[in-house]
């Protein structure tokens, strides 16, 4: 792991020092999604992504990562005074997560910042494999982002706190309100955005989550009272 870290750090540092070699003007204000630039009023940027997570073996009892990729559609809509609204829907077929929230972005030249919060409503339904189960809940994601625009790409970091608001489940005719701790955990992600071919921009991202309850694996009904590290790799198209 240390070798991995060294390699990663040194090369990224080198990259940023020498990026002027690749001087070419690209329009990041219109084509990036995670980079927290300011938005024109009514400007829209949307993205379509796929995320693969390495779920904790203690919960899912397998090291299979491809079981439930998360597909996501996200949209940002520019508002006056550097505000914007972001909405998204994520799904792994048996689960849907809808998020909506305001953000305030500010840019110092190539350095952008964002503060915001998202309200999440998630619901799941499973009626195969011996399940007769429905599930839904609410969560809050206060978040902060920072990003820098290099000559040929942008690099952004986004971190969230995750709070559980409410959750209930129904199995057959049995229904309960789940007891979840209010503070669920936190996440941090790093997103590299750049043109892939022509004017088509993509995002390569890694996101680390440290959560007691990770909503896509609700059907495991985890009862562990401890936070798990769940890494996600994401690939996103921007349009």
């Amino acid at each position, binding site marked *: 792991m240390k070798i*991995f870290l*060294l*390699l*990663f750090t040194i090369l990224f540092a080198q990259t940023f020092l020498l990026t002027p070699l690749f001087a*070419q003007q690209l329009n990041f204000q219109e084509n990036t999604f995670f980079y927290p630039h300011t938005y024109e009023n009514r400007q829209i940027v949307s993205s379509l992504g796929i995320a*693969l997570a390495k779920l904790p073996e203690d919960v899912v009892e397998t090291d299979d*990562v491809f079981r439930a990729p998360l597909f996501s559609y996200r949209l940002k809509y520019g508002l006056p005074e550097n505000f914007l609204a972001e909405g998204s829907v994520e799904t792994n077929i048996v689960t849907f997560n809808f998020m909506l929230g305001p953000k305030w972005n500010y840019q110092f030249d190539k350095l952008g910042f964002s503060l915001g919060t998202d309200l999440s409503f998630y619901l799941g339904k499973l009626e195969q494999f011996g399940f007769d189960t429905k599930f839904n809940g609410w969560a809050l994601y206060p978040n902060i982002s920072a990003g820098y625009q290099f000559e040929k790409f942008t690099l952004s970091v986004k971190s969230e706190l995750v709070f559980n608001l409410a959750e209930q489940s129904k199995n057959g005719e049995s229904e309960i309100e789940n007891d979840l701790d209010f503070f669920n955990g936190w996440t941090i992600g790093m997103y590299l955005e750049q043109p892939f*071919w022509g004017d088509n921009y993509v995002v390569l991202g890694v996101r680390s989550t440290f959560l007691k309850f990770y909503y896509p694996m609700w059907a495991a009904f985890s009862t562990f009272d401890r936070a798990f590290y769940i890494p996600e790799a994401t690939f996103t198209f921007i349009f």
Partner: protein
Amino acid sequence: MQILKIIIATVAISSIGISQIDDKTYSLSTELGVGYSRYFTTMDYDDLNQNGFSGTVKVMWNPEHLLSIGLETGYQYLYSLDVSDYSTEFGNTNVKASMYTVPVFIVFSMKVLPNIKLSAGSGVYLLFNSGELFGDELSSNQISIGAHMGISYTYPINNSMAIGGELLYSYFSKLQDQTVAIQFLFVYDFFRY
């Protein structure tokens, strides 16, 4: 520390580098790598041989920007063990076991300098286990998810070919072990448009 020196040296050489030809040409290339692999494990066997051959074959699509995408396969030796007169509850026996892997990966690479690329890939490793114990053959295959990260330096030898080297770190989820490989690299742009 040795790895740190290698990385610094590689980056330094590249900084002198050849100037970037930033055209609008797309290409398909094949990258062949052969070299040495070292398996790092917490398994506790004195006679475990952890050094072996590593080879990769990549086919990459290279658009005009920094990012490329492709598929990778290859062969990587992981370990072997050959112990005589091993004591067990069933009596003494000879133990032979070995493991190699074939990756089937999607790989992204990014030109971070004119001649240097960072790469990251993920997919599955097909693990092949064989050996012998108590006169019975050991033979099994398994699939593990995995990932690797690498850095490569290539030097063009003509318009469509380049040679260089690659340092590759690989992680095998099923084994929770890793390898570091150093490979000689041959790159050939076989199609441009």
